[in-house]
């Protein structure tokens, strides 16, 4: 395995939420003990439903918010304290792409000026070199200098997302966090952006954290996938294997819920109940109230993410059994 670029060790983050104007404030555990490792040049996909904590994880990894507990290491160094020179240098090497490109762009500024802005901020090169770099970036995302002179409103959704991508690449980052980058785009445009992202990743040997609710897109671009449910990782494994043979009942339901052309809904796992409220996390396994195969133990004891053979890790009593080590051994033997 290659050198990890990003190491996330048991990060947690909770927010105080008040119910009503005079209500007592309760803690919402958005992220609860998440550990991840992303090797250089690879893509880790993070999937989960709304409220699963996948975006918060992305923001913490990027240093946009501090974790309450745990730590993030980038390129074998701990994250620098915000506001310091070391932090700025580190931040230039990691960038983020959001779901809504129009919201991420300034409507009153030509897009070329917005692509140049990170270069100005980080003081990269002379003004002439910056201009040249902007043209180079526009070419890299398959747009022309004429597009650069336009305002965001005069570009299509796919073109805007390319501009956001070009701006993120301006400082030659090593690491990109993509939070639902193609969810707002039509299928054919989505394919263009996914292909472009894959090409750029190969050319520039980028490391990606790819956050999405869309299993298909995540599988397309990721080497390793982590599935989150209510702030915790419930399953982790290589992308192809995880979607072909999901072990955790929640992953099984997610995969089964993803409609496929030419496959009838026969045998679909339809979960009952709503996605739970992060402010009222169920005891034990957070998934047990919706789980079709829950046993008594699931309601009392929180399962721990443990290896079950190969590179798969699952947090489920039914999969790992009482003694995770022996179970993994028998699987390997079989």
């Amino acid at each position, binding site marked *: 395995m290659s050198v990890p670029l990003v190491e996330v060790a048991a990060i947690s983050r909770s927010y105080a939420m008040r119910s009503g104007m005079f209500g007592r404030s309760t803690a919402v555990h958005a992220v609860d003990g998440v550990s991840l490792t992303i090797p250089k040049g690879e893509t880790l996909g993070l999937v989960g*439903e*709304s409220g699963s904590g996948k975006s918060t994880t992305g923001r913490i990894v990027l240093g946009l918010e501090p974790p309450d507990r745990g730590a993030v290491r980038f390129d074998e160094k701990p994250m620098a304290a915000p506001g310091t020179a070391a932090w700025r240098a580190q931040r230039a090497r990691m960038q983020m792409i959001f779901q809504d490109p129009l919201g991420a762009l300034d409507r009153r500024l030509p897009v070329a000026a917005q692509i140049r802005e990170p270069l100005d901020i980080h003081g990269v090169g002379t003004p002439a070199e910056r201009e040249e770099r902007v043209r180079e970036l526009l070419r890299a995302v398959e747009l022309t200098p004429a597009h650069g002179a336009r305002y965001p409103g005069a570009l*299509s959704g*796919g*073109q805007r997302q390319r501009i956001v991508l070009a701006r993120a690449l301006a400082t030659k980052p090593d690491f990109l966090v993509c939070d639902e980058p193609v969810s707002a785009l*039509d*299928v*054919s*445009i*989505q*394919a*263009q952006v*996914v*292909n472009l992202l*894959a090409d750029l990743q190969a050319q520039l040997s980028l490391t990606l954290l790819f956050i999405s*609710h869309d*299993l*298909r*897109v995540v*599988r*397309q671009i990721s080497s390793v996938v982590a599935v989150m449910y209510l702030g915790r990782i419930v399953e982790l494994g290589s992308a*192809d294997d995880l*979607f*072909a043979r999901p072990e955790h009942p929640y992953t099984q*339901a*997610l*995969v*089964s*819920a*993803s*409609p*496929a*052309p*030419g*496959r*009838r*809904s026969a045998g*679909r*796992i*339809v*979960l*009952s109940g*709503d*996605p739970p409220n992060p402010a009222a996390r169920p005891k034990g396994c957070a998934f047990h109230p*919706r789980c079709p195969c829950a046993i008594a133990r699931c309601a009392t004891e929180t399962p721990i993410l443990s290896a079950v053979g190969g590179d798969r890790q699952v947090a489920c009593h039914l999969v790992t059994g009482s003694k995770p080590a022996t179970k993994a051994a028998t699987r390997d033997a079989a």
Partner: protein
Amino acid sequence: MPPLVSIEGLSVAFNGVPVLRGVDLKLQKGEALGLVGESGSGKSVTWLAALGLLPRHARVSGSVRLDGGEILGAGEAELDQVRGGRVAMIFQDPASALNPVLTIRKQLCETLALHRDLSGAAVKAEALRLLDLVGIPDAARRLSAYPHEFSGGQVQRIMIAMALAGNPDLLIADEPTTALDATIQAQILELLWSIRREMGMAMVLISHDLGVVAENCDRVAVMYAGRIVEEAPSNQLFADPVHPYAQGLIGALPPLDGPRRRLTAIAGTVPDPASMPGGCAFAPRCALAAEPCGHAAPSLAPIADSRTVACIRAEASRRALLGMAAE
């Protein structure tokens, strides 16, 4: 059997800009028809126009017949009987379709009083039955709750209950699950499926998600730039799409199993309705486009049993298809 709905040459223009350019569709009783296409292709406008729900400045022409009777341009009184009664509609954003300051009971009973000859206790009993039908737990108590007290999936269930209040023959579901999480989407689609089977109701499912449409519909129509470009039984369309745009849409969908392949992205973007290319609207993005594609817009032509395609380059694949059948 006469079709339940028959749309002919339906065209819509906003301020002189055509957005729907001659749509022909037939829908049989009890049938589930899927309508796919990218944003701006006219999927929603088709049904908003058919039901007279477009703003006044929209110019609508063509014909929409429900059970043989023309409803395009019909009077408000007649349309009020159709909308919510014979034809019901549910939308992508269910929360904004409910009144936040009225209880669910009030809103359900209002629909029931309008479309069903019920009164007093019978209305309340029917409201309870509908809420039970769409799977709201503890329905009797939840009737007096307000929309914000329900989750997104439950609000969509309530919308479905309200749509069913008039015992419709046709339900138009416009992106009903787009705003919902994957596991909740599965619940809602399952609910629509079982209700349709139980009530023998026809359904038009409008979606940008090919998978959702493929799984839940008998027949699919693919729309592009205000026209239908291909229509086929869903299993056939996804197994062997003929129109280059339909092929592109299916190729652009990343597979969930099997080997990974590079996605076949369709180059370019959807044309601006105000400056539509002459001839086939898809020609500028089409890999197969030939010189005659720029002359005239192709019309839907049958290529096999219950399959139609609007593409002059489909001739080749059509011959191949018919040739294989003959052998």
